[in-house]
């Protein structure tokens, strides 16, 4: 082994491999694409001053809670994975719900793969992405450093269905006075939606109805505004999509 002078290419190449550090990200409520850009950045090692484009110099990443990844807008219902078999009429469209059900890890894996530069390092980099569907993972002995989540998930009232945990925290913050049976009803509605249910209109209606039951004095102007927005959006949804409100709530 020759000497590696400090600052030389050989030294840097050695260092960057030495400094490799495992990372862990919680994918819960993270928006798919935004999470994937963060991951590709680190898998490529673009956060290191000793970056090389011809060796693998990124950090291995563990992703937990991949099952609870968030999609914005109506992508949960609209997004398809498209490929062509090469035969006439061979265009295949796989809805994301199906992929989520059959190979849930592939949703994130494909997003990352398609963001990485298509070269020989892509497979190496991709193999350093370890995806786990739930809280637990197999890499405690690597002592991974947690990465802060970038996005706070899709926002309430922004067209798309809010994420489950977001709604739940909103409930606990704003709806302490709601009778249990109504709350359970609406939470069940939201759950059903999270698992690929029909629309966001129904839970919006439920939300509004439940809010009507809370004491008026509890509302801040901000709450009022949000409730107003919810009512408008829900009504619009009902018109467009002809969603049926659960009879218990109507």
């Amino acid at each position, binding site marked *: 082994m020759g000497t590696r002078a400090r600052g030389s290419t050989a030294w840097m190449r050695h260092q960057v491999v030495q400094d490799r550090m495992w990372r862990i990200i919680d994918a819960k409520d993270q928006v798919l694409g935004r999470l994937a850009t963060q991951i590709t950045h680190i898998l490529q090692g673009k*956060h290191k*001053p000793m*970056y090389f484009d011809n060796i693998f110099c990124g950090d291995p990443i563990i992703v937990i809670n991949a099952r609870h990844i968030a999609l914005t807008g109506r992508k949960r219902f609209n997004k398809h994975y498209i490929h062509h078999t090469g035969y006439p009429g061979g265009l295949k469209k796989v809805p994301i719900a199906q992929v989520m059900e059959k190979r849930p890890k592939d949703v994130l894996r494909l997003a990352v793969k398609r963001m990485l530069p298509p070269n020989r390092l892509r497979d190496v980099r991709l193999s350093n992405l370890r995806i786990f569907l739930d809280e637990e993972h197999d890499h405690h002995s690597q002592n991974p450093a947690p990465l802060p989540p970038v996005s706070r998930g899709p926002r309430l009232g922004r067209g798309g269905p809010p994420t489950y945990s977001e709604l739940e925290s909103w409930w606990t913050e704003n709806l302490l006075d709601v009778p249990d049976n109504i709350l359970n009803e609406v939470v069940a509605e939201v759950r059903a939606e999270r698992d690929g249910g029909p629309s966001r209109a129904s839970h919006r209606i439920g939300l509004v109805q439940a809010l009507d039951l809370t004491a008026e004095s509890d509302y801040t102007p901000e709450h009022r505004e949000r409730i107003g927005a919810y009512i408008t959006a829900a009504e619009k949804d009902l018109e467009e999509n002809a969603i049926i409100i659960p009879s218990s709530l109507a």
Partner: protein
Amino acid sequence: MIRVKRGNVARKRRKNILKLAKGFRGSHSSLFRTAKQQVLKSLRYSYVGRKNKKRDYRRLWIVRINAALIPFGLTYSQFICGLKKSHIGLNRKMLGQIAVVDNNAFEQLINITK
């Protein structure tokens, strides 16, 4: 007419071409005819490669500088803008190297540009 044989010259010419074709794949390094074509092509490639090298390295240094700036909350473009404004003429190769080898110097540069 006197018959001219080019023995010596022809051998030399072929030898020189084959010399340039050393390490080429298959017949490209052994048969004169294919070797000559490949040598012409290879010289063109290496000419282009010498130009591309400059671009490739510049890109690499920029990525490195950008990475080194992350802890300081700066981006590459902001940093370079600052350098320009404070009339610092260090090139990207030097900056990339400073960022790795001499943290203090790099920090001072950032302070100047801020």
